[in-house]
């Protein structure tokens, strides 16, 4: 029965993925946790909690569901909807302090861009450990003594996630097409659903193929859109030849439908992936800068970075921003650095200080205006 429930919510909430879907906050005991059991925190996005419960079946842990406004952990933390206040509230109001002897709480690594571990420690005495990015790695993480391998701290975009993303996009787009066409061209309403779904599934499943094109330095959106439009038209052509519908009107109409679909998807395909920076982010073009005078090489930034951008120079006890091309400016490293050694710098050398980034999180909402 639980399985049926899970599948039902999984499908429903994948379709409604862009909407916040909150669940009750508070403490959940998984298995039979004791005074030494690990304490985990997650956000209160309904599907997240379901997934975490499923992944932790058979374990003995305390799960604290903190208020992330019904949004997934990463988006909520990056958008300032999931902050240290919510974690403190979960820790203080859940009675957890009397249930365990230790004071160590494991947070999802992707929350590092918005939740200041240092403040939680200062105000409550709890030590924050950044757990793995993907909940699937959590058992392995526990097995090796709550240590993270590099793989566990890197965000992935496997086929299942890509399918989920395409379902999320396709469902609302096909719904809009359906309603508009139902009014103006009723016979095309149902076929439009198929076209949109096929095209979206195709765009997201083919992601690894065109990923190299999306790296900086290429007119990526244009290439992306032209090639998919071309493929869509080719598909339509073959389809129409096979079904002997081959008319200019048919091709033009479905060509326009495909064009709109590709335009909506391709307008910000990078933003739909976890490891490319969205076209609409103000941080685009900013770079991380390490202040070597302040850096002590303790590697908190390496632990928080979901894209493995940093390496440690053990001799000099310094962190080096080795792979800037991978950086998506999520801000996790800047927010977490205890010594304020990291900041954003734009191409003219203007510096965005760490305090500003902690305050405004990702997406400065037009607050940060460099003075040229």
């Amino acid at each position: 029965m639980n399985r049926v429930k899970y599948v039902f919510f999984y499908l429903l909430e994948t379709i409604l993925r862009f909407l916040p879907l909150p669940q009750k906050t508070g403490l959940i005991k998984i298995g039979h946790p004791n005074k030494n059991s690990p304490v985990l925190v997650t956000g209160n996005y309904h599907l997240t909690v379901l997934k975490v419960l499923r992944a932790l079946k058979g374990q003995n842990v305390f799960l604290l569901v903190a208020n992330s406004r019904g949004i997934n952990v990463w988006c909520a933390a990056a958008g300032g909807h999931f902050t240290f206040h919510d974690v403190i509230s979960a820790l203080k109001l859940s009675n957890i302090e009397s249930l365990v002897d230790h004071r160590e709480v494991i947070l999802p690594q992707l929350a590092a861009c918005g939740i200041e571990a240092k403040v939680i420690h200062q105000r409550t005495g709890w030590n924050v450990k950044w757990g793995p990015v993907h909940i699937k790695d959590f058992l392995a993480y526990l097995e090796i003594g709550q240590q993270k391998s590099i793989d566990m701290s890197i965000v992935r975009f496997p086929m299942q996630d890509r399918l989920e993303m395409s379902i999320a996009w396709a469902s609302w787009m096909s719904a809009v097409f359906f309603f508009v066409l139902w009014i103006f061209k009723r016979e095309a309403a149902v076929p439009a659903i198929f076209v949109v779904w096929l095209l979206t599934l195709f765009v997201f499943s083919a992601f690894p193929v065109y990923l190299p094109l999306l790296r900086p330095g290429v007119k990526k959106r244009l290439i992306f859109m032209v090639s998919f439009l071309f493929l869509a038209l080719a598909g339509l052509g073959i389809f129409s030849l096979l079904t002997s519908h081959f008319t200019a009107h048919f091709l033009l109409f479905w060509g326009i439908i495909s064009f709109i679909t590709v335009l909506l998807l391709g307008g910000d395909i990078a933003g739909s992936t976890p490891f490319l920076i969205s076209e609409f982010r103000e941080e685009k073009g900013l770079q991380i800068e390490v202040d070597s005078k302040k850096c002590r090489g303790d590697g908190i930034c390496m632990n928080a970075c979901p894209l493995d951008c940093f390496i440690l120079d053990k001799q000099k006890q310094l962190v080096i921003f080795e792979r800037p091309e991978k950086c998506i400016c999520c801000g996790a490293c800047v927010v977490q650095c205890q010594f304020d050694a990291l900041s954003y710098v734009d191409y003219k050398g203007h510096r965005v200080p760490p305090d500003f980034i902690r305050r405004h999180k990702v997406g400065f909402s037009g607050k940060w205006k460099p003075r040229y």
Partner: protein
Amino acid sequence: MSTLLLMKLFETTPNRYDRGIRLLTGGQLDNFYDRVIVHVKEGDRVLDIGCGTGALTLRAAKKRAIVKAIDINPRMLDVARAKAKKADFSQNIEFVEMGVAELGNEPDQTYDVVLCGLCLSELSKKELDFAVNEVSRILKPKGLFLVIDETRPQRFLRRLLQGFFRSIFKLFVFLFSGTTTRALKNFQDRIEKAGFEVVSFQLNKSQNLLELAARKIGINPDE
């Protein structure tokens, strides 16, 4: 005043919050604030929970009270700080970015007055219970708890009407900001259980905004 829910939208742009709220309430809220603040006296130690852009904080500071103003939104606090500086009250106000969960760190019987404007409706049930109990603990004996917030109307028809409008706004606000508020329910009973005695209680015309002043008498009458 179902429209108060819409304030959640303005919170995303704190600079425009004050103007937005005035627009939503037609200045009604300001009148409520002005009225409730008469309970604050010169030299009082005041705690403003969820101070936002400092509407109540500044009013209290103007009466020469010593105010600690807390909020979890650093950008709202920025606006409040700027306003305090402009009005030349900043020396009497301490702004701290903290939530109700940290009220546990405040010592017992510290404050003469605790203010709370449009904040309790944003808390979860657990947080609300915690907050009310903590306020009771940190207030001095006979200290005052002043609350202005959204409430559910008493009369059935009104409640139905409000429920209807509110659900529309709720959906709208939820879609845009992913947040919502919960209008207070039976708040009078609740704080009486926590050791308060209601001194004054007023509702607006549409019965959905409450203004309440409660005096701490302690759960134990000996206190």
